[in-house]
């Protein structure tokens, strides 16, 4: 079979685990070989999909607090034992921080990219509302708005039934975040406009929390969560309770 010997090492190559010289030889081969480059692309997609799917569980703040308390030395312990535990905790924290600079940088970068996404969402919300034509499909009927997105975005999603709620749908438009297409819906509640954004989770570069309420740096109330592989953002200057109510309607509809 063509390139059998190369393909046997393709995963090791993509994991960056071949010796330097062999990596360079492999680079040259993959660039010039359609079969190996197609295979490499598939495997990279698979790696990326596992990476996204694998970052799934986020600890609660309550659990974090419990762990912090459990590893913090108790004041009633003897001075010597307390000192030893404190030293061990400190050393673990220092060693953890210093021996994992890469991971530290990654987590810093994760936070920075999260902040960037939240900020982009806020910008999209504001600039859309400032526009003279904020929506491209103007309808209060979800059965009109939902089909409008067909063929425009690479996924489907459900819009909630709004009967017996204070919300009304104003319409929707296509939007982009991280060069990724998504849906932008605008709702009204007591003269406040609320934006709902929907994107494919795996297409976003930032690693977002599974659920997050009102990131502090934003001047708006916001709620974001992931459901069925889609990432939802609900943002607006309405009260946190209104944002949460609309989010709940979406969660129930999905």
């Amino acid at each position: 079979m063509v390139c059998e010997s190369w393909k046997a090492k393709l995963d090791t190559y993509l994991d960056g685990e071949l010796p330097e010289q062999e990596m360079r030889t492999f680079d040259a081969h993959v660039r010039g070989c359609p079969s190996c480059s197609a295979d490499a692309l598939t495997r990279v997609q698979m790696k990326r999909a596992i990476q996204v799917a694998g970052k799934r569980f986020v600890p609660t703040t309550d659990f974090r607090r419990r762990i912090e308390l459990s590893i913090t030395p108790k004041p009633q312990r003897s001075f010597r034992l307390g000192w030893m535990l404190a030293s061990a905790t400190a050393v673990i924290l220092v060693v953890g921080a210093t021996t994992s600079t890469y991971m530290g940088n990654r987590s810093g970068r994760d936070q920075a990219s999260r902040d960037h996404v939240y900020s982009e969402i806020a910008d999209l919300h504001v600039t859309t509302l400032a526009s003279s034509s904020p929506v491209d499909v103007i309808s209060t009927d979800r059965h009109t708005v939902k089909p409008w997105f067909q063929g425009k975005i690479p996924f489907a999603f459900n819009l909630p039934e709004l009967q017996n709620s204070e919300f009304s749908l104003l319409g929707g438009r296509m939007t982009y975040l991280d060069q990724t297409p998504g849906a932008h819906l605008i709702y009204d509640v007591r003269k406040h406009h609320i934006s709902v954004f929907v994107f494919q989770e795996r297409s976003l570069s930032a690693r977002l929390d599974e659920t997050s309420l009102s990131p502090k740096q934003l001047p708006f109330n916001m709620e974001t969560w992931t459901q069925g592989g889609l990432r939802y953002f609900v943002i607006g200057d309405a009260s946190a309770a209104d944002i949460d109510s609309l989010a709940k309607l979406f969660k129930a509809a999905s």
Partner: protein
Amino acid sequence: MPHFERLYNFACWLTQDRQEAEDLVQETYVKALKGFPSFQPDTNFRAWIYKILRNTFLTSRTGLKATATVPLDLEGEEEILPAVKETPESILLQRSDGQLVQQALEQLPVAYREVLLLCEVEEMSYQEIAVTLAIPMGTVMSRLSRARKALRNGLRPQFKKG
């Protein structure tokens, strides 16, 4: 706390139960504190604490059950991944959400799931994985290869359905 969120994520994947994962992470930190004198300063801290977590899991009831029902060492014979002529997975990955991949990961034997997660999610080197799992580098490579193959096989029925 170093690696807290990632340890928790890994623990959830191992135990497949959030409560058990919390207990596992808590026990890991307690053991790390108690066993800190055994840590060699020049060695890899991340691999060390993941190893504690994994060993704690393996001796738990869930861990014993998970590994008792699945052969851990299938590495006797080498097998090369077949060359990919068709790429159903790529089509699947492009058009589906991450849930299918999550489900396929859940279905994998724990030995395959953990090595894939350490490689792809934790982005550990083969050397780090070898230390964490206490297996030789060659075994890391062959187990990874088999885990990837198993995941691809797990996704194929989804492709047929789609």
